[in-house]
Structure formats: structure tokens, C-alpha cells
């Protein structure tokens, strides 16, 4: 197989088959918390995508250029958290200065991502799956887009649920969880793709 096909397949697998929420169960907290409206869900997805891409790049570099030479690979979780937290802060400041529009659109969701497990998850997965730098960045970018797809779809479903007739005991969170699980089952259908 050519390199291009490989990369394309990798992208598809990041978004669909290895979707962070539906097959890896990472980032479920914002997925359930910020999926009440499509607009805010899209903002959140955008912010996560941005941070995951940047975090993939930085943590990969940190791991390969600092932790491996110093032979302290077991510090990865600790340093990754540190780096991601700092990274989110810097991105926030950078956006505030350079693009107030985007900063306003992302709003509170950007700092919230600091402790999002999908971001730490992508950083750790990049290392455990022994991806090279290019693939690591793609993993972050398309993993983030997969997250965005999932959260926007979920928000769409939940917006519909708001106005539908639902049995009393299922109202609110129970039905959200059920719809999330049904979506996860649907996403399993992509399993044969890559």
C-alpha cells in the first residue's frame, strides 16, 4: 500500500473506528456536559481539536527529546499533565491577543480542556503506539475532529430529545447515556473500515 493510502486510512480510523469517545471512552465528561446545544458543542469540539493537535506535537517532542535521553520515561504522565496545562494557558493567551473572535467563541471551554482525559489520552497513545511525529500530529488533529463529530452529533440528538415525549424516569441524564451508548454501538459498525 502506498504511503498516501496509509495516511488516509489512519485519518479515517482516528475519526470513526478509533473515535475517542465511542471506542476509547476518553473525554466522556465534556461529551456529556457540553452537549446540550449544537453551537456550544461545536465550540467545545473546536477547542479540543486545537489543544489535542498542539498537545500531540509538544508532548511527542518532550518525550523523544527530553524523557528518552534522560531515561526517565516513567515520568511521562506527570510531565504530560504539566505540559498540557501550560500549553492550554499559552494557547488561551495567544488567542486572546491574536484572535479575539475565536477566543470569544471558545470562551470558557478552552481552560476547561486542561484536565480533559482525551488530551492526555492522545499524548499517551502517541507514545504507546510508537507513532512518528507526523502521525502523532495527525492522531491529535483527527482524534479531535472525531471528538467534535461525536459531540456535535450528540448535541443534535439531545436537542431533539428536549422536545420529545420521554417517559418520566428516563428524562435527562439516563436517556443521554442511553443515546450515547446507542451511538457507540452505531460507531462499532465502522470497525471493518480500517
Amino acid at each position, binding site marked *: 500500500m502506498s504511503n498516501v493510502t496509509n495516511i488516509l486510512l489512519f485519518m479515517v480510523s482516528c475519526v470513526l473506528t478509533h473515535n475517542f469517545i465511542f471506542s476509547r471512552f476518553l473525554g466522556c465528561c465534556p461529551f456529556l456536559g457540553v452537549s446540550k446545544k449544537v453551537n456550544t458543542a461545536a465550540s467545545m469540539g473546536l477547542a479540543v481539536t486545537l489543544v489535542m493537535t498542539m498537545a500531540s506535537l509538544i508532548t511527542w517532542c518532550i518525550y523523544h527529546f527530553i524523557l528518552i535521553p534522560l531515561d526517565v520515561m516513567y515520568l511521562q504522565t506527570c510531565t504530560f499533565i*504539566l505540559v498540557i496545562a501550560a500549553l492550554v494557558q499559552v494557547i488561551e493567551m*495567544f488567542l486572546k*491577543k491574536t484572535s479575539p473572535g475565536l477566543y470569544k467563541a471558545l470562551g470558557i471551554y478552552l481552560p476547561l480542556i486542561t484536565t480533559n482525559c482525551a488530551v492526555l489520552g492522545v499524548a499517551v497513545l502517541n507514545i504507546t503506539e510508537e507513532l512518528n511525529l507526523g502521525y502523532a500530529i495527525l492522531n491529535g488533529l483527527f482524534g479531535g475532529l472525531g471528538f467534535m463529530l461525536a459531540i456535535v452529533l450528540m448535541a443534535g440528538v439531545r436537542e431533539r430529545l428536549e422536545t420529545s415525549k420521554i417517559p418520566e424516569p428516563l428524562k435527562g441524564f439516563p436517556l443521554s447515556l442511553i443515546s450515547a451508548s446507542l451511538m457507540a454501538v452505531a460507531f462499532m459498525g465502522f470497525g471493518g473500515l480500517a
Partner: protein
Amino acid sequence: MDIFIPALIVAVIGLVLGALLGMASKKFYVKVDERVEQVRAYCAGAGCGACGYASCDAFAEAVVKGEAPVNGCRPGGNEAAKAIAEVMGVNAEKTNPIVARVICQGSNATAKERYNYNGIPSCRVAAGIAGGPKQCRFSCIGLGDCMAKCAFGAIHMENNLCVIDEDKCTGCGACVEECPRNVIRLLPKEQSVYVHCRNTDKARMARDVCMTACIACARCKKACQYDAITVENGVATIDPEKCTRCGECAKVCPCKCIVPPEVVA
């Protein structure tokens, strides 16, 4: 000893990141006008939206930008206006306190019932059923939608009619928006003389449904020496600019829908 090296490594990474963050915060520093915070501190902070902005913060920002008037915070009243004006370095014009007033006196005692309503206790619902439980189609329905909406506890119900405590009312206008019948209006607080009816029907029809309906007889208009009253569309209106609150109109009103100033106080 083995523990010190990794600890040192993490500490160094942390320090470097800290230094980077410090540099970044200088480099990407966005100047926030300190006056915004000061103005925000003087706002009443009720979040009522009477100023026309989404939040007190948005209002403070708009004041500093010069888009909103310094006396825009209605719940804050004169004190807030003064303090905000000081921050902005301008003289505050005296705010004209505004309160919500009920343009209806149709309580159980005066307004005739159309039917006995036992449904959901909400004016909005009742208003949709055969024109409401009171015969007058302009009247206060009296089920307390406004009372539920008022954030300041200024509204209570008496005899199926809402009553507003003008001392507690901040003029935010939440009740005005809530009322399905539009019987609440924002009026200057000092304007204590006003017509307590908005029934535009002809005299006979208005009088048939309510004892205190304005029948547009124009006696008040004749009694007014200041030309402050107009009678249009079957209802009298008092112009607060011209009115001196002498109370002559209230004396002649046959339906008592203008209340003398001392009674309203």
C-alpha cells in the same frame, strides 16, 4: 538518591514552563481597562437586564466604551450612577427613577368575571381560554405571572389584581415582559398620577365589564389646567412632562380610574 534526579527533571520542566508562561503573559498581554472592573463593582449586580445588556459585566464594558449611559443601571439608582460617573469622570445626570405600574384596577370587587377559572395558575394560560376569566379583555388576569417573575419581591396579589410595591420595585421591567395582557408599564416614579385603565372600548362596553374602567368622558381633560391629558382611542392618557400632580383630574373622574396623588403616595 534515585528519586532526586526525576524530581529535579520535573522541577526544571515546570520552571521552564513557568518562565515561558510568564513571558507569554507579557507578550500576549491584552490591556483590560481597569475602569470596567470599577464600574462593574458599583452596579447593583442584580443581573436584571434593565440596562439593555446581557449582564452587568457587559454593561460595565459598554459604559467604559462610552456606549451605555453612566446612569444606565436602574436597580443601582442614583448612587450607582454617581459612583459610575465618578469612575468615568463625568457628571451624572440625575436618574429619573422608573417603576413598574399596573394600568388596571379590575380586582374581584370591580371587574366582572366571565367564568370561574380553576386551571393552571398562570395568566398566560388563562389569557388563552375564551379571552380570560375576567370580562374585560384589557384587565389584569390576576394569577401572578408577574409576581413569580419579580426578582425583588415587589409584587403581590390582592383580590385577583397585582399590586406593586414601589419602594421595592427597581424598574427592571421583567414583569412588563412577562404580563400577557400588557397591563404593567414602566413609568417615572414621581409620576404618581396616571390613568389606571387601558380599556379602549366604547364607554358603555367598558363600563359593563368593570366599575373602574375609563370611559373616555374627557372630564379629566377639561379639569386639567396644564393641558396634560389627552383622550384618544377611548382612553385618557396623562403626559408626565406636563402634569404637575395637582390631582384635579382625580377629583372629577367618575370611574375613579385616576387615583389622587395622596392616595397613591
